[in-house]
């Protein structure tokens, strides 16, 4: 989201549009309000999302619905072990022009989209996974010495399955850090399951979803979110939260000292504040509160902290450790 917004939008309008997008997605993704809120937050904060959940919970459906609601160019890559980097980024093909001239022409891959769904990303080889690194971080693809800019807005939604890990390649820490959020798709509640039958039994609602915004409006709203005010108190709170996850630091939370091997990176701090800004606009504020930081802390931090082996063998989850860290952090701020 490097492009300048086409125009200005008031915070009231930004809040209204954000709430409209959320409501639209909630209507087709039944019973996943928190997941939808986090997803919208990440998209308008300019981040990428790693979605983890069991098969059949609607991960792909959610991505398609989001692209449809925001009017974004959607693309999908189904990862397999034989997927090559060029299959994602694109490749040069030999073509002949009508005039008879022959040359190599770059044919963009599926990464050249505004919303890229990388399905089951952990089934791709590390080489292919690494091909996404430049695209996710630099918003560009370099091929044969030529740099190709990606369209804006650009968002990668990657999914992975927490089970059936045979034949998969877990994402390395460096690549995990590129994702702003790691979202977990919970199993729907009973009422949600019942409502699901009414919504999507005989049709795919995402296919017929009408866009209520466009790429330009997404950029404008994102710019408005970036202009929210951040008080010193909130800056200190964000820094304290990241430091609280550092097991060797002086400000580490006791749970972090006990259970974490590595804490969150400085990139996590940036993601934390950027996501909190979108949350503040969603709440109708032009300033960030500590509560906004707390609201986005779990999806920002859960894939950026590394558990100790002992804690992992004890069955501890990063979310449980983060909960203790947040409790201690809350008492400090």
């Amino acid at each position, binding site marked *: 989201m490097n492009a300048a917004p086409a125009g*200005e939008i008031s915070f009231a309008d930004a809040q209204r549009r954000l709430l409209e997008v959320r409501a639209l997605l909630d209507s087709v993704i039944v019973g996943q309000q928190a997941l939808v809120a986090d997803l919208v937050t990440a998209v308008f904060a300019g981040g990428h999302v790693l979605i983890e959940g069991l098969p059949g919970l609607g991960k792909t459906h959610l991505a398609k619905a989001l692209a449809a609601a925001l009017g974004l160019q959607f693309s999908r890559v189904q990862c397999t072990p034989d997927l090559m980097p060029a299959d994602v980024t694109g490749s040069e093909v030999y073509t002949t022009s009508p005039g008879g001239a022959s040359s190599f022409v770059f044919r963009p891959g599926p990464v050249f989209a505004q919303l890229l769904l990388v399905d089951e990303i952990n089934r791709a080889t590390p080489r292919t996974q690494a091909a996404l690194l430049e695209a996710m971080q630099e918003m560009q693809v370099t091929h044969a010495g030529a740099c190709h800019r990606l369209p804006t807005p650009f968002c990668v939604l990657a999914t992975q399955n927490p089970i059936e890990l045979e034949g998969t390649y877990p994402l390395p820490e460096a690549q995990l850090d590129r994702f702003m959020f790691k979202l977990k798709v919970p199993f729907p509640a009973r009422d949600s399951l019942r409502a699901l039958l009414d919504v999507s039994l005989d049709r795919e609602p995402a296919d017929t979803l009408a866009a209520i915004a466009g790429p330009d409006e997404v950029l404008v709203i994102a710019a408005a979110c970036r202009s929210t*005010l951040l008080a010193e*108190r*909130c800056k200190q709170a964000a820094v304290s939260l990241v430091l609280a996850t550092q097991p060797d630091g002086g400000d580490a939370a006791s749970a972090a000292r006990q259970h974490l091997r590595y804490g969150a990176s400085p990139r996590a701090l940036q993601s934390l504040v950027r996501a909190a800004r979108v949350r503040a606009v969603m709440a109708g504020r*032009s*300033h960030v*509160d*500590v509560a906004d930081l707390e609201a986005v802390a779990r999806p920002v931090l859960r894939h950026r902290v590394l558990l100790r082996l002992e804690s992992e063998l004890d069955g501890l989850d990063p979310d449980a450790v983060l909960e203790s860290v947040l409790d201690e952090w809350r008492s400090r701020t």
Partner: protein
Amino acid sequence: MNEPTTDAAVPALLAAVARRLWRERAAVAARAALWAWAAIMAGAAAIHFVAGRPGFLAAAALGAAAWLAALAWAAMQRPGRAESALYADRFLGGASAYSTLLEAGATTAARDGAPALRWLAQWAAAAAPASRRALEARRVPSGLVRPLATAGIGTVVAAVVMALPAEPLVAMDSPTAAVDGAVPQAEPLSLDESLLAETLAAELATRVPPDDPGRGSMDPADGAAVAGPLGTMGSDAPTAVSAASARQAVSGDSVARGAGLTGAGEAAAVEIDGDRPGQPGVAPAPGSGREAGASRDDAAAGEGSRALQGPMTVVRRELHGMDEADRRADMEQSGNYLDDAAAAGMTPSAVAPVAPARPPAARREARLSPVEAAYVDAWRAARQEAP
């Protein structure tokens, strides 16, 4: 978002928060001052009960000083606007708006600034009335009841105690007097005992050559000790025999013949005035001098002897009535009772009925045995042959 009710809503809220915070700090100071007052009164009452002073006014002045210090501290703790804004953000639903507003600029100037500032100013102004209501509804207990009650009780107790007549507890029997009452008083020797002491001292004087005056000696070779006459020895020399030399003589396998030794169960010190020129009544310490021992340590130790540095009183110690623990704790007996018990091959409990440090009973007919006399003669010969 509602339109702001008034531009002054946020400053008024912050001022109200500042007043509340100041009041809370004053309450903290008052609590501390009350506790200090109660402690001062209790302490003053206790001191007055023991020593008869200080008076109530002095204690009250000290308490007033504590009050002044606490109030001065509270006066210096006036909260600023930033602190008030943080309080409102945290506890009054401010959602960081007030502190952000203060950092971003004045509330009125924010309207002309960036859209975010305008929006923030509107948001804060709209939220201020709710925060004001939350502030009024927020009741923080002052916590003054307990310290106030304690201070009151302390004041009453101090007033009552200090109103009592000043009779300090030290007017009672002093510890020294009590100890003196518990210790058996020294009893002067009876006439018969003094006579016996003189006789025995004279006898010992005849056994010691005149060229070795005033020196007791001890032969460290076999541990046998001879309590020599103290003071100038000679046929006409006054003699002083100390109980210390007697105790030294009876330790271990030694044989003692001390003058003025009292009966069983009594340790006695006898002083007989001497008429040695220039040193009346003062005798060199037993075992002192160059003959005091073969080693340098023995000589050095002898120099510190306290025996017969002046008139001594006789102290009777009733050892029969003391139990084993008391006897062991008796410093005067510490050097003897274990040796006696070990020499007799008895357990401490078996020794209990008999005083371990009891010197042999002084008898008028006590004389040196032939063996002892031979030993003394041998010692004298050895001394004469020595260069």
